[in-house]
């Protein structure tokens, strides 16, 4: 029998609520929780009359995704689920009602069956309250399906939410914010590898078995198996495999520009991420692509999983402006 994994937690079932208490204590200037809405987190600055409310959400365990991206210039609120579990409809409704300013709500979240069912129920409930809610799913994980519409949403969330949040902050109408969100999603591609399993706070057991010496290629952010398993290879070869796939998918022309995210799945430290980025930069240079901005760090994690993902957003003038738009979130700032 495997021994429990080492975690600094109290009761696994209380982990999410205790985390939220710690977040609210750390970031009182950025975030608050509406009365009677224990799983809705709202930006102190950002939501305002006439502004489309961007409401994001999903399961916990991906921090700083989602709630770290709630703040002026980015998302207005987040609905918080249990670990790796879509929130039920109520927190999404709570978040939307607290954040909405009369110009409609845009729900954005990763494309997972559970999230779709719960957020759709939330939309129906909002409709009954007379609040218009639209939905844009993120589907950036190119390893998860050949059909774009069936892909998972993973670390590319950061750029996609950022573009939509900037559009909403610029007071664009719901149609426009929705169009931009779809456009941002369509131009964002991610692929990742895992070097270890994660383990849930409730079970404290590895969710799956990944022998030392192997890695999972195309791993999702919940420990869902990837496209294949293979021997752990040197960083440059891992990057090359991912970049070959991303560049083929993206079909960018020489001279085009991209935003880059080299993301830790949780346990992989900055040293390794920057080693990956050295090769990413070389590959982009060889492809004749310009780098507009590079983010490196834990942006979309999978609890304590070791591994990393690479995201490219294929910029155009519109997306560049939106990516450059300032934002001020508890766990992400720009400009």
């Amino acid at each position, binding site marked *: 029998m495997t021994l429990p994994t080492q975690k600094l937690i109290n009761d696994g079932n209380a982990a999410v609520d205790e985390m939220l208490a710690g977040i609210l204590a750390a970031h009182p200037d950025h975030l608050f929780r509406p009365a009677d809405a224990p799983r809705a987190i709202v930006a102190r600055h950002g939501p305002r009359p006439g502004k489309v409310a961007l409401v994001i959400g999903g399961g916990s365990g991906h921090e700083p995704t989602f709630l770290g991206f709630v703040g002026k210039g980015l998302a207005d609120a987040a609905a918080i689920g249990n670990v*790796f579990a879509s929130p039920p409809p109520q927190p999404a409704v709570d978040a939307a009602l607290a954040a909405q300013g009369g110009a409609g709500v845009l729900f954005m979240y990763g494309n997972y069956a559970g999230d779709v069912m*719960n957020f759709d129920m939330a939309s129906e409930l909002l409709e009954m309250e007379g609040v218009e809610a639209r939905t844009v799913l993120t589907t950036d994980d190119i390893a998860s399906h050949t059909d774009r519409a*069936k892909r998972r949403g993973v670390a590319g969330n950061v750029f996609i939410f950022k573009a939509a949040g900037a559009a909403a902050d610029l007071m664009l109408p719901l149609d426009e914010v929705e169009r931009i969100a779809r456009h941002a999603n369509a131009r964002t591609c991610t692929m990742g590898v895992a070097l270890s399993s994660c383990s849930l706070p409730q079970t404290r*057991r590895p969710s799956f078995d990944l022998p030392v010496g192997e890695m999972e290629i195309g791993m999702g952010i919940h420990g869902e198996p990837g496209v294949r398993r293979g021997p752990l290879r040197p960083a440059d070869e891992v990057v090359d495999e991912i970049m070959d796939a991303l560049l083929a998918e993206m079909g960018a022309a020489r001279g085009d520009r991209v935003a880059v995210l080299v993301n830790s799945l949780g346990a992989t430290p900055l040293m390794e991420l920057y080693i990956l980025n050295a090769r990413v930069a070389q590959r982009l240079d060889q492809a004749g692509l310009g780098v507009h901005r590079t983010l490196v760090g834990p942006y979309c994690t999978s609890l304590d999983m070791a591994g990393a993902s690479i995201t490219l957003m294929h910029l155009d003038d519109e997306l560049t402006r939106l990516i450059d738009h300032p934002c001020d979130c508890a766990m992400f700032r720009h400009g």
Partner: protein
Amino acid sequence: MEFTTDDLKALFHRLAARMAAERDALCALDGLVGDGDHGIAMEQGMVAADAAVAGADGSLQDLFNAGAKGFLNAVGASSGPLYATAFLRAGKVAGPRPAMPRDDLRQIIAAMRDGVAQRGKAAPGMKTMLDAWHPAAEAALGGAAPDAITAAARDGAEATRTMVAAIGRSERLGARSLGHLDPGAVSAAMVIEDICRALRGQG
């Protein structure tokens, strides 16, 4: 001997205990094809449903509705909307009655199947919990004995081993999902087994 609100409370209580006991095994199954949390969702959902039902008054339908709400709000995930919808549909069948003939549990099973199918938009053969609910519902409606309904659910769950997932979290696995059980189908067979105990008059 009718199926009363007390029987329904006892059923939810048994389901909560059952899912707690099976939690780690269901998580392990979900770890192979999904995200490893199905046992947690089912335990939290049934425990919350049990608490809600235990604390509720009223008809069978009222209790089913309370269970639906309790399950959904505690869980979210895929299981939350699926079981919440199933319980709401079951409540509609049970209606505002304080008790019903035990045989109506056959319609309850079928209604739960319908709820899962409607909410999840899946069809049988897609390697989901529907692959347990669907054959069980067919057996129940066809008048099969409780043990045969249970067996149909279990066989349906077992058959997911040979299916390639076509919906839900494991859909992206493609052929890699072959050979593994669908965790939601396995837990569904357990739920159905406990309903069939009640149908048999044993609980």
